[in-house]
């Protein structure tokens, strides 16, 4: 019973933090662009409104896919240690986390492709291409850290940085951190890597046919993915944290960097994005890997 409650709490917490980040992010961007911007709790209002609205669906795959999307990301979230706490006792294996994340994306992709709108499918095809773009550099970074620590457990890697700030992988392996940051930008689908959404070209791509609670679920999925991705970076490079507030604060720092970049950059075309990801971050990551290996 406790375990069930714990799992539930972790899930709600991730959603809450994710939505909060989204709201603040919008505000920050607005300020950078010299607008006033919505209140920081706007994301909660949006989700509430969407869930309250009636919506349309075309077939059961849409429902299944959306549920799978959020479910998959929540499951991933449950494997990520948050300030040393994990929802259940596992070895917090990085590879498991990376693969589990994919099921969320698959669910989302399936749902929007089932909607039958070509724009949505174009968006998905771009998103998947992008995925190939950022997974490789990101994994190269992870590989270096795994080899240094001799373990693929996220928890152990974060524990290994305990002590002073000088032990952080961010300081020890700055190149890896830069590469991971760039990959993270693409992973979150923020500018300049947002070709899959591209409202002006493909009418928000995947989102084009979603309405009501489907769009709401998509929002929540995005929120959880922000949470998971920032949490992974914090664990990998910033040594985790001793309590949850510090942890969330560190996550927010990471998110802020992404938001700053998002606010000022234009959009890459998809092939430009992939080419960029396969040259600059991979180059940096491989350099770091060589430094580690030799």
């Amino acid at each position: 019973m406790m375990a069930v409650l714990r799992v539930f709490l972790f899930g709600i917490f991730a959603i809450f933090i994710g939505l909060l980040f989204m709201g603040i992010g919008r505000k920050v961007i607005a300020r950078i662009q010299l607008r006033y911007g919505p209140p920081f709790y706007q994301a909660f209002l949006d989700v509430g409104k969407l869930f309250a609205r009636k919506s349309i669906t075309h077939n059961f795959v849409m429902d299944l896919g959306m549920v799978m999307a959020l479910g998959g990301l929540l499951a991933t979230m449950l494997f990520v240690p948050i300030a040393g706490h994990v929802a259940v006792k596992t070895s917090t294996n990085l590879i498991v986390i990376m693969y589990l994340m994919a099921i969320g994306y698959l669910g989302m992709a399936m749902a929007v492709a089932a909607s039958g709108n070509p724009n949505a499918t174009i968006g998905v095809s771009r998103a998947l291409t992008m995925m190939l773009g950022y997974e490789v550099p990101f994994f190269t970074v992870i590989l270096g850290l795994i080899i240094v620590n001799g373990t693929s457990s996220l928890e152990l890697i974060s524990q290994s940085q305990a002590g002073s700030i000088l032990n952080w992988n961010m300081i020890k392996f700055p190149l890896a951190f830069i590469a991971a940051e760039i990959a993270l930008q693409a992973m979150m689908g923020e500018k300049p890597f947002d070709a899959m959404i591209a409202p002006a070209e493909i009418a928000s791509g995947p989102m084009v046919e979603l309405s009501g609670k489907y769009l709401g679920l998509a929002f929540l999925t995005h929120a959880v993915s922000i949470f998971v991705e920032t949490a992974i970076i914090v664990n990998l490079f910033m040594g985790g944290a001793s309590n949850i507030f510090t942890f969330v604060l560190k996550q927010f720092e990471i998110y802020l960097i992404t938001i700053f970049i998002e606010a000022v950059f234009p959009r890459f075309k998809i092939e430009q994005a992939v080419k960029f990801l396969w040259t600059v971050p991979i180059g940096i990551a491989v350099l770091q890997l060589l430094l580690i290996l030799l």
Partner: protein
Amino acid sequence: MIELLLVPLITTLVLAFFIRYKRITWTLFLAANGFVLYKLYSIYGIWNLSYKVDTAYKILGAELTLGVSNNPIGWYFAFFSALITLLISLFSIGFNKNSRSNVSVIWMLIIFSNLGIFFAQDWVTFFMMWELMGWTSFFAITNGKDKALDGAKYYLALSLFGAALMLIAISVLAQYTGTFQIFASAYGLLQIINSSTKLGIGILLLFLTTFLIKSAIFPFYMWPQKVYSEGPEDYITFMSSVMIKYGIYPMAIFIVPVVGSADLPMILNTGNVLQYTIGYLGAISAILGTILAIFQTDMKKLFAYSSVANMGYILLGFSSMTIVGFEGSLFHVVNHMILKAAIFLTLAAVVFRTGESEMHKLGGLVYRMPLTFMTFLLGIIAAAGIPPLNGFGSKWMIIQALMSKRMVVFAIAMIFASTGAFMYLFRALASIFLGQLPDRYKDVKEVPPTMAIPMFIMMVIMLLTGVVPGVVMKPLTSALKAVGYNVEVASWTTLEGSLKNSVIDLKIVFYMFVAGVIISALMYFFGNKSEKVPQNDNYTAGEYPEEWGVDADRFNYSYAFYQPFKEMFEPLLESVSIDGFFASIGRNFEFLSSTIQGLFKRGEGAVLLFSIGVLLLILGGLII
């Protein structure tokens, strides 16, 4: 032991007799496969079973003895092959109701040869069965269709070439070791490598090439797409899931032990030269297979290349030469068998109902074939290696092994291929089953029960192996233990990696996934209710195109699905075209053939050539 081989052989004859009665043949076929599976089940653990035939045939001064014997790794391969084959043959009953040709006879002969390969005790038996598999496959692929001839010829030429290399290797090896026994000659080969390295590696590479050809590893990666696109779909299912593993089996029992313990120059202290050769071949196959699969528009070709990539993973696991990698590879063999069978069965079902295998001409079939869709969905989730389905565990073990050996390039290749797999798998899903249903497929129905049942069982097996990997890992580890590897028998649900603190419990992964889905489902039900509307309502904005005298123009985005990606990679692939190389060999032979024909057709200069011949003899006999 011998009845295991005799029953398929006798069944072949009986089937040949009844070839015109489809219902009888396919039922018999199913029964024979059932028997094989039962028999295999019953001989588990009895590793001293064997059967020998003494012939009077003298070779290398001794009389040749042919033998089969039960061996643990062979059993492991044979048992799971038989299991999948049984399911496919159940599917075949329904699938072949309307087909004109009957492939069951030759297929049974292939099953016979396969059992022979897995249980062969000596290289001669192995070779005989191997060759039998080559030409029988040719007939099974063409199955009376001229369209399939080109692919089948390509396959035949490659497999005959491979067999020729193997014959040379066997003969040389027997000359140096004095034995045809597989296990004894492995030790012999090791000694040859240690004493005269060049010769030993030469022999090893000859063997390796043969096995690479059968398992479609780079540079022989072209045949699956040529063969799978034209052969009979149910047989192709067998071929892609089960038969492609026959190259892996001898690698596991012969190549890996020899390479692993050979005393060869090391690279970066992580592995020896041959290990890296195998690894690079695997990595190139994985990457190339993935990229090419992304380009395909024909779904069978797409999954053919996916098979190439998966064979690459298996080789990568071997190349690590650690026990985790080895187990992971062998585990992946079975996982890939299961998931590829599931996927190809659904493709067969789609072709059965629509007669179309070009993905961009399909679409929206989920409305008509939901069960097929579900099987396909689980299949691609498994193929992408996403937990909690079965492809994950083995891939995870292989990556673990590569990381622990610091083989970074291979690990990155593996991740590239897995992520790329996601691209092509989703493309197949979206193009075949999702999107809008074309009008011409309005009346398509779900497949009949005889075909639906095996697909359903496939789903169950995929989930079961995914959550409880012990069903495969337990027999595997017991088999490895029986062979003499230093392993613990695996537990039901946990997998053990080779890095620190890397035990994962797939049961927990499954529970977490369920928990995530439950939370998300709660959210879903918490939201306001939704209304199901036909796609047209949204798509044409509520208008009725029929009223304007036009049809609703349906279209899916599925033709040039990854065009930007394709544009990036095409120049690269054009510069390394192995296919072009093989094609040019074929063309040169044909050109030569025409020349020779011309020579013999006119027959001019017969006496001149005669004189040249005499001169040659004189040159050889008197002058030199």
